């Protein structure tokens, strides 16, 4: 596929997902589920940008792993802080 078309398809997907995000509260009224799905959509948008616009899909696996390590550590910080706030009190 011509890469320019691919970029346009990704762009269309990103815009479509943003549209879904804005209207999601009317589809999923339960707050916890709504937030979970909303952040899930944001995650898929981030993955699309990283994979295709930042070309991570075409880079060696070592580089993808490099990026994931950063994400894991950031998640660890948020996760453990969350445990401190909400568990075991």
């Amino acid at each position, binding site marked *: 596929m011509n*890469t*320019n078309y691919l*970029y*346009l398809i990704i*762009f269309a997907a*990103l*815009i479509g997902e*943003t549209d879904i*995000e*804005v209207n*999601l*509260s009317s589809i999923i009224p339960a707050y916890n589920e*709504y*937030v979970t799905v*909303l*952040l899930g*959509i*944001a995650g898929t*948008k*981030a993955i699309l*940008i*990283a994979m295709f*616009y*930042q*070309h991570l899909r075409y*880079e*060696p696996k*070592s*580089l993808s792993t*490099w*990026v994931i*390590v*950063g*994400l894991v*550590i*950031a*998640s*660890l*910080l*948020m996760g*453990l*802080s*969350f*445990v*401190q*706030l*909400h*568990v*075991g*009190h």
Partner: protein
Amino acid sequence: MAEELRAIARRWLYTTNHKDVGILYLITSIFLFAAAGVLALTMRTQLSVPGNTLLTADIYNQFVTVHGMLMIFWVLSPLAFGFANFIIPLQIGARDLAFPATQRDELRFFLFSGVMMILSFFFGAAPDLGWTLYSPQTASLFTPTVGFNLGAGALILMTVSITMSSVNFLVTMLKMRAPGLKLRYMSAFSWAILITIFMMLYAFPSFLAAVVLLYVDRAFGTVYFSSIQGGSLLWDNVFWFFGHPEVYIVLFPALGIIADVIPTFARRPLHGRKYVIGAMVVVAMLSFAVWGHHMFVTGIGIVSTKLYTVTTIAISLPFDVMIISLIETLGMSKLRLKAPALFALGAVANFIVGGITGVFLASVALDYSLRGTYFVVAHFHYLMVGASIIGLIGGLYYWFPKITGRMYNEKLAKIHFVISMIGFQILYFPMFLLLDMPRRVVTYTPDTGWGLLNLTATLGGFIFGGAQLLLFYNLYRSSRVGPPSGPNPWEAWTLEWALPSPPPPHDFDVIPTFLADGSIRFGSGPSLPNGAGHSEIGYPNGSSVLVGSSSSHLEGLSPWPILMAFAAFIFFLGLTIGKHANPQPVSYQPFWPLIADGVILGVISLFGYSRETFTVHEDTHVESWPFRQVPNMKLGIWTFLGAEVIFFGVLIGSYFFVRTNDAAWPQAGTLFDIRNGFAMTLVLLTSSLTAIMALASARAGNRSGLIASLGGTLVLGAAFLYIKAGEWFSLGASNVFQNYSLPASSYFITTGTHGVHVFAGMCMTVYLLANAIKGKYVNGDHTTLEHFGLYWHFVDIVWVFLFPLFYLI
């Protein structure tokens, strides 16, 4: 003569050579070591007798804080990285660091950040809350001095310098090792630095985010750390997530030096070498999961308490492996008791005491009674001074002949060691017995019974401090008149000793090759045995294969880094030293003339950078697993983005922290207009499309398409900021802070930081656009565009999360 002096000045002011930069780091940190030491001795004098009035409580608190900060941030790490700058490229067979142009910036930012920290004494008062800067005492309400802001600015500059440095070293060590030098064959010191840098890369962005939050709280009146929902617990989390790895960050380089020095002087390879390296890796990973043991008394919950007790005890086990390996290395050896070996052994002994007393503090019951007492001060200083500083001094003696080409006075060095060790024990051991004396108290009454132990400690302090004068004298004198050392006075095995002392400016005439049998070959010359690897011991004498010198220290000089760092210094000075505008909550008024000067100087230096041609040749026949197919610059940018992930991760984590802790958070759409968020999202996503189309146009050789796409990216970036500015002004006019202080704080800080990133991206776009108009990037030279795109898309990804977080939930 004048010309010669000018050349010397130019070399040391403008240098980009990694060895020169290393020497400057070493000298600067030694001076700051002396300054922080004077503060410590003054404090010890104050505490030597009960009821002493030498220092007021205010001054004492400032001395405590600045002493701690200088020692940790401006002495221990820079001293270690002075060695790293000088030695690492030599040990791994690289001609320089991956980004020589960046390392000069790191040094200057570090230098000016240190100046700014010391200057804080002269603007009201320096930071005075201890190096941990516990919240909410840091709020303007409790600490209204301008000097505190200056200290926060200094910390921001310092962390920027350290982040650049981390990226530089990581790319160098992962991508520029001499052919055949696999990661597992690197020396213990190189491994220690590599692991330290990993920790720095992930720990310091957390600290940067914490200090930015603190700084904005103080300077602009946000309430992250003065609110009940955030406050002390949020600060504890973000600070100690950085703070505990920082302990290992300052300890590991010394351990690496010890693990290089002891085998050299014991004439035996490091026993269980791979286990020592494995243990360091395990410590590095666990170091990010132990921070909660600093928070046992904060009410973090029983589950967290148990979790952190287990991880804290677990982290002591890999250290046992390291110590046992070092002791095993000494077993049955014919140890040569030269000064580096003595200091290494002394550091190990102190480390055992400091380490074991640290395990006590993993026990919740003991921590409840011992925390905040002089027992902790003793434990901490046995590690920071006893292990780290003593180990680093061992490194000074060890590499002094390599750096200067001259030998130090061995007899004086041994006297220095004996007095230092005696002084150290007299200074710190009594503090273990002062386990009922609170730390950071300015004085005490005679009936406490602490007088004798404090007097003893003070006596030890002066013995220890006085001993360091011998070190300074020895190094200064020997660097001028010491006998020539020759290339390898220790008969050591790592690669730097195969070079002349001091090494030539370009390091290697021929990049060496590490052969499968553990020997080293220079070009077509004879192979030399290598003890750093996996083979038998040998004694390299490689100086004869290095001939001639094709470059000099005066190559690659640039005035822009020092100007850029000075601009940043002026800018922060302007942001921090303004007079009181309102009493509370915003205590400071920017001093606009200084800020404008900083911006102008910054723009001038950026313009100078853009006109500089600084070409770094990327060798292809080097050892670069696991990133063989990734160019240096691309790896550097991804590594930098990794640090940015942590930075924004902490900002977003802090948002979650206060939000989940606040039952009265306004519903989506009530505070921030969803239409604005949606519009900004569309604009930024479109700018990502134009950015990627710019790259596609450049690859296709389509100049007009490139210019149009870059122009589109610039316009869309400006449109994003325009909408954002409109929203900011509108919210500001609606008194949002009065009604929703915490949601407003998190919104302004997080989106403001993101906006600064967008603006930086736009500046890059202007530069790229100017070059594209001149015809660049369409002839196969489009990598710069690709690198810009990585950054711009990252900024887009951050917004992808900020949009739902602030506008939709």
